[in-house]
């Protein structure tokens, strides 16, 4: 049994129609409920009918988040190891057909990046790569992790879907968290957006989290690429995925990210852009639906948005980020995956968090806690 069996119980168009057909009564029922909310409640909360209740949703989301996570926000920083990629993703700046200089960090370059990042004060790191199995495959990862592990308490990886035994090997090298975004849960559209490369295999990607779960990874991240397809329907499937995973792999923690499509070197063509208001609605809906899930925010978003989202349900956030390999130690700007909207320094952003009454937490894991 994998998520394939679960997702096949649904029909995309029916789900979309259910969300669009949710009523004010459905929304109020979801908001007023005292126990656990269901996936039908989630549909109501992300529906157009919930838009007039955004303030109520925000208040509830803020309260539920505080109860669970306290007045804290976890800080992390991404490190891009490589932008080599054998996939064609029609929306991505690292896509094979995008003519940008390709770079994979050498040992010396990784060490240089670590030095700069440690000076900024980070202890939780997110490693990001493209998908180029020959040059940036398991042996590259293992070598990189041996250089990186001694310097960080918590290592997350956003890496191409791998086999179960490979996830186990990454865990042995100290990886705590694996992030895989499905991009879109719509099987037909998925093929249009991913015409070439290993990534064109929808099912292999869809079942990634099952393999991650079986490998005993501590935390896994999921998400849909917002804007690629109807964001509401994709988010519903992502919530259903989360619900399924939590029941089956009950020892894992979960994190949801909100990659909203932004301009990048590949050009862009958005089917269903999500507005700031709708993104807030979505974040609050996830929190009201699931009090325990971590909600994560990158620097793709604007300063104003990030300043205000801290209180609304987000539990971990990056700052001061570079999305090009070698970007911290070097000064190259042409290789980045997406453009950063919030360029504030870590120190400045920490002040913003404190002013909102939250404690920025740089260490909330210890490598000694992993067997």
């Amino acid at each position, binding site marked *: 049994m994998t998520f394939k069996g679960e997702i096949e119980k649904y029909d995309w168009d029916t789900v979309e129609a259910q969300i669009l057909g949710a009523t004010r009564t459905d929304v109020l029922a979801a908001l007023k409920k005292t126990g656990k909310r269901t996936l039908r409640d989630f549909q109501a909360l992300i529906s157009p009918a919930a838009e007039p209740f955004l303030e109520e949703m925000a208040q509830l989301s803020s309260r539920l988040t*505080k*109860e*669970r*996570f*306290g*007045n*804290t926000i976890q800080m992390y920083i991404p490190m891009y190891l490589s932008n080599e990629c054998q996939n064609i993703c029609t929306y991505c700046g690292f896509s094979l057909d995008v003519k940008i200089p390709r770079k994979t960090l050498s040992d010396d370059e990784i060490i240089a990046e670590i030095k700069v990042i440690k000076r900024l004060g980070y*202890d939780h790191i997110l490693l990001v790569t493209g998908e180029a199995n020959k040059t940036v495959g398991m042996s590259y990862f293992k070598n990189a992790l041996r250089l990186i592990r001694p310097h960080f*308490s918590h290592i997350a990886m956003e890496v191409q879907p791998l086999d179960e035994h490979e996830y186990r090997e990454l865990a042995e090298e100290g990886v705590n968290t694996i992030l895989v975004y499905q991009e879109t849960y719509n099987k037909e559209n998925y093929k249009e957006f991913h015409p070439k490369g290993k990534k064109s295999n929808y099912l292999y990607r869809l079942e990634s989290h099952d393999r991650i779960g079986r490998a005993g990874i501590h*935390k896994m991240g999921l998400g849909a690429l917002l804007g690629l397809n109807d964001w509401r329907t994709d988010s519903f499937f992502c919530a259903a995925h989360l619900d399924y995973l*939590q029941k089956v792999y*009950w*020892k*894992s*923690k979960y994190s949801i990210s909100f990659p909203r499509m932004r301009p990048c070197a590949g050009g862009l063509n958005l089917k269903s852009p999500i507005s700031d208001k709708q993104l807030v609605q979505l974040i609050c809906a996830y929190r009201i639906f699931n009090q*325990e899930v971590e909600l994560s925010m990158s620097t793709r978003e604007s300063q104003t948005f990030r300043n205000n989202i801290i209180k609304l349900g987000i539990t971990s956030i990056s700052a001061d980020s570079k999305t090009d390999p070698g970007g911290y130690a070097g000064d190259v700007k042409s290789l980045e995956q997406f453009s950063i909207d919030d360029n504030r320094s870590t120190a400045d952003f920490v002040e913003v968090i*404190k002013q909102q*009454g*939250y*404690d920025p*937490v740089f*260490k*909330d*894991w*210890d490598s*000694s*806690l*992993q*067997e």
Partner: protein
Amino acid sequence: MLEIADRKFDSRLFTGTGKFSSVDMMVDALAASDSQLVTVALKRVDVASSTDEILTSLDPNRFDLLPNTSGVRTAKEAVFAAELAREAMQTNWIKLEIHPDPKYLLPDPIETLIAAEELAKKGFVVLPYIHADPVLCKRLEEVGTAAVMPIGSPIGTNKGLKTEDFLEIIIEQSSVPVVVDAGIGAPSHAARAMEMGADAVLVNTAIAVSDDPVAMARAFKLAVEAGRMAFEAKLAGVRERASASSPLTSFLD
């Protein structure tokens, strides 16, 4: 006065260091609570550094540290973490927390029992976080834990003493101190636990997340004192309805 292992405590309110909006706020709230035992998550402190912000802010003359193993999923990981905590925080006291379920953070009774036995043998003062399971409490006592810490309700939920009937049995049967841990969301919950005869309570979320943590810490201090005083004074029994005016057995007189 409460005694656990080799230590005596004036205060029966134990507290935690998580979820506060700043270290300064934490220090002020802990001071107002008069607590003498404070739990610290190993994962939150930088054991390699002598300047860790949480550890350096806690006055050692005022607070004893109770490191906890939050984050581990197995007995083996817990034992390793406890040894690391002993080294880093210079105490052989350990709050044994093994919750492989990160959703409700409910404790694993099997792994906890295995780890408790091993840690007790290694000379730790073990305070295990466990379900309100009376049999498990006796088993833990038998392997040498210094206290038991049954839950009132799932951690962080503030739902109060949902396990009250089982806590009563545990308190009745236990030969080691019973510390009600987790789920205590209001001073009235803490007072109730103390009235029932709990030896202490551990409160974190309800203080840290309130709008005024300092005032809430003081409210809990007073509630714990009041509850304990009531327990020692012996509560008058509660009756469901008034006593019958015409006794059923008077014909025997």
